[in-house]
């Protein structure tokens, strides 16, 4: 078993909290893990990505080879397209549809959506809106993770315990909001698949 995941977004959007959650769940399951992060200059509003590799055997490279990623998980729609050369032909594209516009030449949303929909295996959801309706705009990341959870080959309960562990310091309310966000994302993906 292996899951090669590209996490994508814009510096400051916090893609690393998704990586940490998956990472904790994977380690708890006894899987091997490597996670290449981007630090430094690009964090200032530039495009950022993380290579997360999970496997039941020793992992060699820190970087995912082209055409072999099983998942692209993106918290920003245009950024989800930047890493297509990495996606395997039968991989899944899971992306937020809420754009982060900090450049003057940001493309039209219809064009971006057309490209995303062009890809057979995709789930696109307005995670920001779903999170807001749950009363926690900051949990959009967990909504995205919830949508991706169907494809991770990690027990859902392991993701739940990882979230409990990660947010326990911030109190039960914060834990619950994040668990709800995770569930909402998962429900959306399940409905989409059926």
């Amino acid at each position, binding site marked *: 078993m292996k899951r090669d995941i590209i996490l994508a977004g814009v510096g400051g959007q916090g893609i690393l909290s998704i990586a940490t959650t998956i990472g904790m769940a994977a380690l708890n399951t006894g899987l091997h893990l490597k996670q290449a992060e981007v630090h430094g200059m690009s964090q200032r509003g530039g495009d950022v990505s993380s290579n997360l590799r999970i496997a039941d055997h020793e992992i060699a490279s820190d970087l995912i080879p*082209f055409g072999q990623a099983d998942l692209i998980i993106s918290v920003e729609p245009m950024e989800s397209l930047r890493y297509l050369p990495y996606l395997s032909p039968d991989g899944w594209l899971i992306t937020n549809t809420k754009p982060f516009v900090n450049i003057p030449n940001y493309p039209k949303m219809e064009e971006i959506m057309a490209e995303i929909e062009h890809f057979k295996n995709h789930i696109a959801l307005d995670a920001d809106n779903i999170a807001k309706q749950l009363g926690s705009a900051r949990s959009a990341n967990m909504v995205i993770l919830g949508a991706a959870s169907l494809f991770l080959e990690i027990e859902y309960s392991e993701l739940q315990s990882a979230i409990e562990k990660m947010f326990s310091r911030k109190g039960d309310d914060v834990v619950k909001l994040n668990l709800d966000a995770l569930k909402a994302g998962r429900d959306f993906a399940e409905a989409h698949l059926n």
Partner: protein
Amino acid sequence: MDQKLMLLGDEAIAQAAIDAGMSGIYAYPGTPSTEITEYVMQSKEAKSGKIRAGWSTNEKTAMESALGMSYAGKRTMVCMKHVGLNVAADVFMNSAITGANGGLIVVSADDPSMHSSQNEQDSRVYGKFALLPVLEPTNQQDAYDMVFYGFDMSEKLGVPVLMRITTRLAHSRAGILRKPTRKQNEIRLPDNPRQFILLPANARRQYKSLLQKQTEFEKYASESGFNVFTDGEDKSMGIITTGIAYNYLLENYPDRHIPFPVLKIAQYPLPHAMVSEIYNSCEKLLILEEGYPVVEEAIKGFMDNGKTILGRLDGTVPRDGELNPNIVAVALGKKDTRGKEIPSIVAGRPPSLCKGCPHIYSYNALNEALEKWSKGRVFSDIGCYTLGALDPFDAINTCVDMGASITMAKGAADAGLLPAVAVIGDSTFTHSGITGLIDCVKDKNQITIMILDNETTAMTGGQDSSAFGRIEDICIGVGVEKDHIFVLDPSPKYHEKNLGILKQELEYTGVSVIIPRRECIQTAVKHHKALKKAEVV
């Protein structure tokens, strides 16, 4: 101890140094090396062990402090990014001659592909230049283990050891198995009281001793177990990898069986016997190394009259940039697995100054103040404010090395480009700007120097700045006239006032220092949160 820790390569090095009995770590922040020192600074174990951990003014002062700690007999580490080793080069080269007393590891983090740097120089060349042993870990666990080994070797051989890492190892997380911890050393001065006095007579003796140790260094490299030869049935080609290139090779063989003989190099000087063995038993060699073709050049030789050597020099592997599994696949003659192309509508998203960043208002005022002059007279430096080179500011004309803004402005002013403007950050100013300022004052150059003071080292994540609270005093101390030092608030409401001062000082025929001062928006938010949290408690 059985539980693996998930650590970045940088953090693995830091944890290893703590576990291996280090007494102090010195550094100037620089991507991708910063997290080593940060980890030690935040470590409870380091705190309870009273390990000295903190930021130095620059890499040279950091390395000199580390050498002093080594002189006193304790284990110490100094960390920097690759270009930082240029700043520390004087003490680094000479530390090879003095040798070490307590274990001394110099970590230099290279940045091939220049993710956050102005060049991709390969620190292994410095290792060879200084005639010192070099360790180049293959993975995060290797990095952890090599710190223990490096300290031991440094003490046994009496020399500093260079550890060279690259971005992907530094900033990638993997499970690390810890070793039992070792006690810190007691103070013990060098046996030879002249060891650290590099008067010519002593230096000649010491240099001879360094030369004599080379065979010993090579023996260590053959016997440590970090350099590994694995035979293969297909002798049509042998493969030599260095550092993390080995992982990319392995990635191309999912069953982990490589048909070719492979020599994995992770420690230098190159062991001749091991290299000869693979060279003699194979028809040709493929060399895969992250960075410069250091090993490739050595084996190929100037005359290139031996066997065929494939690598970066003949184009089998691109001459520049970092490696990845695909580049290695193509070099092996395998299929490129690149997937769907990036759609043409995807726009570039370069980094930019944060919303509310004080630099935005400094550049707005500077651009307007310079409207009456011709373009091309703003010399800048290294930090977040380098982003002033991009749209919509297009405000600066140079960025070369730490501190070069002030001195390049001076040279241009000497050439007659008047007024010349320098733009430098607070931390960069104390790193390497003060000496240049003294040159300007001495020659009474018509220069306006903007020291953008955001009270932190922002680009690398908000480490404290040696300049904090003392910039005006430093400027007065080196002879800038008090009447030509101005502290501004770079906020929109003071735009007109700031503009007036800038215009006035651009006309002044001597040295002016303008200090726009407002805390970095990122650290301000962090401080605000910490304050709120403290109130709740």
